């Protein structure tokens, strides 16, 4: 089916998230939420697990033109079930009209998505709940000062995985949330990036034609957590895709397609070198072993994809 969103200029102009939030300047997650809510349009209810995005609505102020529901880290998909059921019952009993139905959006960070809230998400996908899930993946517990989450990449420095004589930052690999979600065979699961807004708009549009779980994992550069200047957020998100570290893909009923493929990938160190959380791989001495290992991991991934 043809897309309404040929170029960036087709972006919906109505803002669903107005200015005045307490999020950091240059927050990648804030940009993702803004674009996502624009695409869903008026009449989406956002169910927000505790995380950075808790700071969107701080009593008595909210940037949302529609409803926002705040819930504990583990429980957002369960709350989404309750909201969806309530809407269905209200429609059944003719208390609201079918055209006044609301879209249900779960909004969590990677801590809730990959860790604390994974069980409730698995349940909601298993039950075929009709909802959107936007996981903004800033690869750490940014809201509390950037401790490691299950989504923090290998060799990255966080508050709980500082580089020491014993380890070069995190010794664990980033959890593959896309594959975990995909294993449930939901109608739609995709990765998105704030540097590829066109790709993101197409994916949200495509998901909008489906019923059931519609799941998105968004690469979300975090200026204080990653140690980057706020103006470099889009550049670094773009580099993540161009180096192949952040593959842009979708899976429809479990069937994977890569939506952006760079035939000639930049070396991963171009991405790593932009961020303070990987600085120990370059200073005081270059850590050839770790950099080569990270390049190898990325190459292995893409060799399997492009085979």
């Amino acid at each position, binding site marked *: 089916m043809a897309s309404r969103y040929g170029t960036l200029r087709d972006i919906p102009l109505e803002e669903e998230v107005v200015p005045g939030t*307490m*999020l950091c*300047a240059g927050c990648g997650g804030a940009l993702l939420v803004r674009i996502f809510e624009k695409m869903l349009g008026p009449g989406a209810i956002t169910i927000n697990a505790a995380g950075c995005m808790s700071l969107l*609505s701080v009593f008595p102020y909210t940037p949302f033109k529609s409803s926002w529901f705040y819930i504990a880290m583990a429980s957002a998909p369960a709350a989404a079930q309750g909201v969806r059921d309530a809407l269905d019952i209200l429609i059944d009993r003719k208390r609201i009209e079918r055209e006044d139905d609301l879209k249900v959006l779960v909004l969590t960070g990677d801590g809730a998505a990959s860790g604390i809230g994974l069980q409730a998400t698995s349940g909601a996908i298993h039950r075929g709940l009709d909802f959107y899930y936007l996981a903004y993946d800033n690869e750490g517990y940014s809201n509390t000062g950037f401790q490691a989450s299950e989504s923090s990449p290998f060799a990255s420095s966080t508050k709980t995985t500082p580089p020491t004589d014993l380890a070069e930052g995190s010794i664990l690999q980033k959890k593959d949330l896309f594959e975990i979600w995909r294993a449930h065979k939901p109608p739609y699961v995709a990765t998105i990036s704030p540097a590829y807004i066109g790709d993101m708009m197409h994916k949200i549009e495509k998901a909008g034609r489906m019923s059931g779980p519609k799941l998105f994992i968004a690469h979300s550069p975090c200026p204080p957590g990653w140690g980057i200047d*706020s103006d470099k957020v889009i550049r670094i998100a773009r580099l993540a895709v161009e180096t192949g570290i952040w593959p842009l893909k979708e899976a429809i009923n479990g069937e994977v397609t890569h939506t952006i493929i760079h035939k000639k990938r930049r070396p991963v160190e171009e991405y790593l070198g932009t961020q303070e959380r990987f600085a120990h791989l370059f200073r005081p001495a270059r850590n050839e072993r770790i950099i080569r290992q990270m390049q190898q991991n990325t190459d292995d991934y893409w060799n399997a994809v492009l085979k």
Partner: protein
Amino acid sequence: MINVSLHGRGGQGIKTASHIIGTAAFLSGSYVQDQPLYGAERRGAPISAYVRISRQPILERGTIENPSLQVISDDSLLESAADNPLEKIRESTVVLINTSLTKSDLASKYSLKNPLIVFDLAKFDPEIISRPTLGIAVAAATCRTLEMDFDLVRQSMIKELSGIHLDKDDIAMSIDLAKRVYDMVTHGETVMEVSGIRESGIFEMKFHNPAVSTCSITATGNSMLRERGRWSGFQPIIDYERCTKCMICYVYCPDSAYTFDSKGYPVVNYDACKGCNICQTECPVKVITLVKRNKT
């Protein structure tokens, strides 16, 4: 007990300042608590941190309501009507503030009767306000005001700054900065002790219906009403002669700060702009420049 309340902006190193002051006081043999106000630390957003120093064990917990010493790292904080740190003090609270204003100008501008100590870090380095080293300078000024020996400050800084993985050279530079600020701050004011809690009571918590005991916001899209003060010293200016109306600045703005005029040119809402500068970096024809905001 001496209660110190520190106010600054996220990214200035105010949390570290509270740890440096606390550790220096601890090394002098006092009981100490030091902590930031946890939960909403954001780069550029107003933040606070607290230090309690006592010769006896400290039974109080939580934030400090009646500081003996109010420390303000950045006088732009006084521009915010909602979070003005001068609103939350007693008459005898000593105010230690980084400002270019003189004592008498400050007192008349904000009708203050409090004892004031002013120091001007812009004299050292005009850009210090946007760097994490500001916290170091604030810690040194505070320790001077509390009449702590500089050697304690030095020991405390080595301990705290190695704890956040600063290397030896950076620590040495920080100590050098601290020493210069310590020597610069002069004061004739004495920070008064306040009495702490010596006994605890039991408070009965009554049940309230969640409809009244939880926070509900019934307004929509009202966040522009929040007084946020200045987030950044810079703001983007568009050269309309060369602008191609490509919309890139609008698309990539995380804060919905861009709108369009009737001819389709982008317009910045400066009250909404946090100065992240993404628009300048991404502008394909480079028509956005950053200029220093006028101080109001």
